[in-house]
């Protein structure tokens, strides 16, 4: 169990990135815009879990007492510091613009993925983030499914479960808990401990789902 735990990267956005990309091929399981919004939500959840930011009256605000240690968190907190208080939705849209690259690069720096340029360079074609090790890439989904199924989920696992629901991600490793994602009553029950732990996380998941819904409805690129 300890060995398996060490495989995880320790960042919710990293785990969600791996869950949302096919293990061997790196092919995204979500459309680019929805993946970007999911990763933006995951990054904000990381900051909330680190007590670096909080949500007050629907706006994202810095918590004065915490100094983040990870480089990406420092940058994100710097951006929050520079702005006047803005809504969570604004932050999701803003972070979504670069979330795939930012999280992909963090994973590349950690040696978990490598970037493969497209063979044919055409407008609109982006490269793929290929996992270095398939087992490592597959593990977050397996681990979340296992812990949620047996009722041992941590806040981090529930964030990943909630992001799966918010983005409509369909990862084959989650088949055992698929009913928990689709049944409203079971979904509410599963996520309810998260509300007690930190209601800001539930707010973030909800706002991510709202943003994804808007992206699905508008079907626009730019």
């Amino acid at each position, binding site marked *: 169990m300890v060995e398996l735990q060490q495989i995880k990267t320790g960042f919710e956005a990293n785990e969600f990135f791996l869950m949302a990309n096919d293990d061997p091929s790196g092919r995204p399981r979500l459309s680019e815009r929805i993946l970007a919004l999911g990763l933006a939500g995951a990054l904000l959840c990381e900051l909330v879990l680190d007590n670096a930011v909080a949500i007050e009256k629907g706006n994202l605000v810095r918590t004065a007492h915490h100094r983040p240690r990870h480089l990406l968190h420092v940058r994100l907190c710097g951006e929050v510091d520079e702005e006047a208080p803005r809504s969570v*939705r604004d932050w999701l849209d803003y972070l979504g613009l670069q979330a795939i690259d930012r999280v992909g690069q963090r994973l590349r720096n950690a040696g978990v993925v490598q970037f493969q340029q497209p063979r044919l360079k055409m407008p609109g074609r982006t490269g793929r983030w290929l996992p270095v090790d398939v087992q490592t890439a597959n593990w977050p989904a397996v681990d979340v499914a296992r812990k949620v199924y047996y009722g041992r989920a*941590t806040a981090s696992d529930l964030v990943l479960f909630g992001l799966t629901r918010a983005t409509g991600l369909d990862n084959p490793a989650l088949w055992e808990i698929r009913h928990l994602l689709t049944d409203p009553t079971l979904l509410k029950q599963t996520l309810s401990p998260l509300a007690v732990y930190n209601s800001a996380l539930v707010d973030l998941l909800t706002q991510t789902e*709202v943003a994804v819904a808007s992206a*699905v409805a508008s*079907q626009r690129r730019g």
Partner: protein
Amino acid sequence: MSIPPTAPSKMSAALAKDRLGAPAVGFFILAGVAPLTVTEGVVPSAFAATGLTSVPAAFLVVAAVLAVFVIGYLAMARRIPNAGAAYALISKGLGKPAGMAGWLVAVVAYNLLQVGLYGMIGPQLASFAADNFGLHASWGVWAFGAWAVVAVLGLLRVDLSGWVLGVLSVLELVVIVAVTIRGLAHPADGGVSFAALSPASLHFSSLGPVLAVAVLGFVGIEQGPVFSEEARNPKRTIPMATYISLGVIAVVYAAASWALVVHYGSQVVPTAQGPDGTGMLFAMAPGLEASTGRSLFLTSLLAAALAFHTAVGRYMWAVGRERVLPAAMGTTGSTGAPQAASIVQSLLGAVAILLALGMHWDPIGQLFFWGGTTGGVGILLLLTAASAAVVRYFWTSPGDEPVWRRLVAPAAATVLMAVMAWLCITHFDVLLNVAPGSLPTKVLPGLFGAAAIIGASWALVLRHRKPAAYAAIGLGSVALSQRPTTAVGTEAPSSATRTGNAS
């Protein structure tokens, strides 16, 4: 001393660049309206079926009524963001059973519009392939080819760029304007008459059918609020885009149909009823305009079919997300498309084409025109109900809206549209060009009555069997954002730390 303007923050600048401005939203609306499909496909069919020359005036009258309608519609839509805007407004204003009735009417209407388009695409592709490539196949084969393209693109969910749509929409408009000018420059009877543009040309007895066709031309204009969450400044962007789109297409439709009357003179109706009726718009300007226009007409038809396919999918997905339909309807695939909803819509399209082939329907006169006009009447009924919902909603929650926006304009629009809908339904035989009291005049409008009854009944069933789903009807994003965030009496995660493991 003046204070220098503050530069927008990095985030504001990035968001402003990413979100949709009024031109982009306008192009999305225009792409859904598909102006070339209307001017080349619907207008000649309208002359042919109704035998009337007052089509240009009808476009102006309907545009004026819709301009009054959107005042209250957009004001209320700002408060209730939802992918299926009209039914969400009806739910909020007139109650959830009425909302579900409106939802099913919308689905049936958009479906009729979408499947009807195959009746025009098939013959047009068949004729295009025969003329240009010597390929000869029945319209049904080509209709199924187009159906397959729409089905695949609907599932793949091609994310659309506002600017790509803009280029295509502007090209369509340029071609229509060029052909219109050529038509007006060559009047049939030696002079240009403005009579067809005058509302006086509309006689009460013939008003219904011609207004129904005009309403069909404007279907898509109600889609603006769908983009409100993606807009740079929803309060300004959506109304501006809607009004400009409405104005542009009203002028273009009225001018193009007027040019047909001027160019063909007293022969406009016989020409429309003849074998070359569908091509009569481009026949006014042979040469480059006509050849460009015919190619664009095909892409416009396909774009319109895809737009309505997406609209139906969005409507089904919106209620699937609210768990009013099975949860599968509210899911999206790896492409971000509402997959189950898209597949259902594609199956319905295939059934419609097979039905038309099996029953030997005339693809243009029956599948396209009957489907399109009946769908247009359905949208008119939907918007009438939405307008009534606006009146009731603002009656109870006036907020800070001025009285003309919350009461005067919506009440006037409701009355006007209700009269239009009544005229359409009571003169359905003229609209379809069939004998009064024949089966189609009962079955086609009856579809909406049946849809409304089934929808309202389903809502009442849900109220008893699935109260949570009933409560969420029409709420869309609001339902999501109002979920309780704190559950009393539940345990915290098994560990107080983010990654701690209880095992």
